[in-house]
């Protein structure tokens, strides 16, 4: 059984989103809702401390530029360090959830 991830799962989702392209905060929320078929819900404000934390650890970089809407927004970009962290954490998560699923299936089978 793999160990539980060291990174908050929301942070992992943010990194994976950014691996698809640079985004700003609101855009990420919208994308998360869309990609998870509106099953993923979170308090939108809690995204920002996570983003600032990722920036502090060097996993992402931020810059201000014009969004498609015409207004200026703070965009985030995945760094090489972030990409490497994403790869490692994703692998960790896959292994962990695989182990959990395996155990659950056993239990379901018996029940």
């Amino acid at each position: 059984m793999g160990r539980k991830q060291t990174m908050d799962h929301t942070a992992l989702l943010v990194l994976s989103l950014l691996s698809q392209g640079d985004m700003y905060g609101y855009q990420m929320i919208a994308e998360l809702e869309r990609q998870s078929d509106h099953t993923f819900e979170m308090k939108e404000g809690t995204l920002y401390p996570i983003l600032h934390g990722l920036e502090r650890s060097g996993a992402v970089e931020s810059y201000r530029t014009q969004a498609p809407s015409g207004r200026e927004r703070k965009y985030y970009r995945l760094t090489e360090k972030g990409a490497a962290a994403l790869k490692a954490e994703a692998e960790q998560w896959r292994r962990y959830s695989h182990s959990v699923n395996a155990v659950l299936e056993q239990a379901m089978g018996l029940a």
Partner: protein
Amino acid sequence: MELFETFCQQVCREVRHATPEERDSIRRELRDHLEDRAEALQSSGSDEEAAAQAAVEAMGDPAEIGRAMNRQYPLGWLILSRLSGALLLLLCLYILFTLPLFGSAYNNLRCRISPSYGGRFMSGAAPESVCLTDYRWTVGGSVLRVYGLEPTHMDANGDSRVRVYLCAYNRNPFRCASESLVRDVVFLDESGNELERLYGGSGNTGAWYTTISFPLPEGENGFTLYYDSHGYQLEEYIPLPGEEAAP
């Protein structure tokens, strides 16, 4: 939108150790998000007021967000930055206030280059009876200099004395010159006897200046300058300026 401002304010209140620029950036980002959410809600039918309210609610608890944000802005390097900044300011203010002190370095250099300006001859022009000379001796870090000789100076009693104009400066213009040089120097006649001297007092404007007068025995045309103090020795014969030089 005032509602948005209040929300941002509440979040930022929990972030204790952030610079005004950092706080501004957070506020801006949150406000942008609220505006985007409110706009999206408006386009799907809500009115402005309701959309704004819903947007703020969707964000979550501002205090909780603020606390989570605060954890990303620890005191850490900021404290060093602030301390160093304060020290830097104090030092700069101090240097500004004591700029006149550099005047002593200036005077020190003047003594080195043209002592007549810094010494007894304030206007720079020596009286006619004084002969400008340039004798220098290095004693440790300081330099003793004789910059003027007056072979026939009349003292209060009407006797004729030799008057010597001396100054001492430090080779490093920022450091003090040796006071001992102008105070302990003595003058000897040709037989080696110490001549009774009238010490003219010394002053310091970064460099020490003094004038010393003494009676020279009849027929002698020079004297010996002698200094022996605290491990340094100096001895040199100085001839009086000739007839052509003095009036």
